[in-house]
């Protein structure tokens, strides 16, 4: 895999957007930045227009039940011309996780964000067509959340209570 010119790009984002850049990391040559949700669309537009990140690879989320905010939404974009890649992250908190949609910047994010909403229950503000895509429209719960049991029906005894578990999310 190629090496990203990491320092400079992160510095440019940092200089331009100051505190919106909450964190950055370069793990195994993969550059990631955590952006404050309110500025995310501006950062994305800057990356697309001025840094040439024209191609959206995927968008998804990661569920960290023990953390607050609980969800990390992830977009990964590439510049086809410069052969560089950057991962944009932002966070969303329970009980009603919201992040901005990047479909206005990269239209290809449409289905990826729909899928993320479908499987994680994260609302993408400004998404033109946010509805279930992989699961049936009548499905309840969000399967890729960590408290969604993957095999079989969960057994909860009358004197037990599973931490942070919404009753609707328990579907085997």
């Amino acid at each position, binding site marked *: 895999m190629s090496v990203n010119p990491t320092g400079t790009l992160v510095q440019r984002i940092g200089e331009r957007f100051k505190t919106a850049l909450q964190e950055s990391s370069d*793990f195994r040559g*993969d550059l990631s930045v955590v952006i404050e949700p309110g500025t995310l669309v501006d950062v994305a537009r800057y990356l697309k227009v001025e840094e040439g990140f024209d191609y959206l690879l*995927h968008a998804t989320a990661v569920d960290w039940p023990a953390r607050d905010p609980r969800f990390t939404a992830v977009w*990964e974009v590439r510049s086809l011309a410069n052969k560089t890649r950057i991962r944009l992250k932002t966070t969303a908190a329970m009980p009603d996780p919201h992040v901005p949609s990047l479909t206005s910047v990269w*239209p290809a994010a*449409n289905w990826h964000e729909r899928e993320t909403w479908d499987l994680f229950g994260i609302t993408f503000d400004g998404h033109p067509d946010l509805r279930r895509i*992989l699961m049936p429209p009548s499905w309840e719960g969000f399967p890729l959340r960590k408290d969604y049991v993957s095999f079989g029906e969960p057994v909860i005894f009358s004197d037990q209570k599973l931490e942070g578990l919404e009753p609707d999310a328990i579907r085997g």
Partner: protein
Amino acid sequence: MVKTDIAQEPIGPEHEPEAEWMELNMGPHHPSTHGVLRVRLKLDGEIVRDADADIGYLHTGFEKSFEDKTYTQGITFSDRMDYLAPPINNVGFVSAVEKLIGVEVPPRAQAIRVIMMELARVSSHELWLGTTGLDLGVYSGFFYAWRDRDLALDLNEAYSGVRMMTSFTRVGGVAWDLPDGWLDQLQRFIDVMPSRIDDFESMLTDNPIWHQRLEGVGVISAADAIEAGVTGPVLRASGVNYDVRKAFPYCGYEQYDFEVPVGTNGDCYDRYRMRVAEMRQSLRILQQAVDNLPGGPWLTSDRKVALPPRSELSKSMEAVIHQFRLVSEGFKGPVGDVYAFVESPRGELGFYLVSDGTNKPYRMKVRPPSFCNLQALKRLVQGVLVADVIAIMGSLDFILGDCDR
């Protein structure tokens, strides 16, 4: 013509008002969907005004299942997603794990991976040729394609014991060395395939009906293709020279001499040409891989991720401990997230792996090329005739198992 917004369509006496558009369900069991896909078409007479692809019929929750299995167990999930190119999925999955952990893969293992991947590419494109031809009325081609594809599946079987779900990779290499006589069998495949592809081309490439069905149909410009996020032959047919094997070489692809075919028109006919040309290039790579196959081990000697050879088990206590640990609980990865990607016959197949330091992926997101290409269907079919929808869907070459996971 690609029309992105229905609202821009002229409304006049020749155009019926939107209320009178007919909604037509194509699928979920339509033969041309090659899987289970439902497309809701909005028709103005025979002209398609809008399309909504309803996917998810083959959703099996692989991404969730990955979270419950160790890294080695996860390999068997990977090839069940894109079931027409399982070796490429295997390599994509383990390369994400290898990137996370930082494992070196021996040259022989890399060459075996390249051989298996290029075989998969040829067999996948063969199947595509056959089924797309079938959709458009070239019935005989299907039987030829199936016959030729079987040669590649025979090789899969001779190597891994399984015709499709090879699961042949391991983190740090491959599971087995090539069996005796396998390279001769592969050589026969490499020798016979060019003439078989010539046969196909003589049947289709200059066939006037094939031209009429595909030329100028489903056109997408380079800028639109990038914006729509399409990948693989669909992206290259529009003139974007992007192939992971060239742009970000993995498994030693930089050592092989091959070309990436790039189209100019971005129509269905160019996508057909891309795939035929790619088959020829794959055969070139296969020949070079056979000629220069390195010797040596096919699995890393790093005992933290790879099983020790059985011969060591009777002599070394340490080997027994490693064997026990690896089989019972697997190995752990560092905390972090990586994205690894390979070029599948359908485009860039990516694996975004998040690790929390345990022996299982905390999150495994697959970036399926079929999903990305199918998303562009809405753009491509607006303003075309219903019959062309079949040609366009065929030219996108999506596999619903890959798309829905």
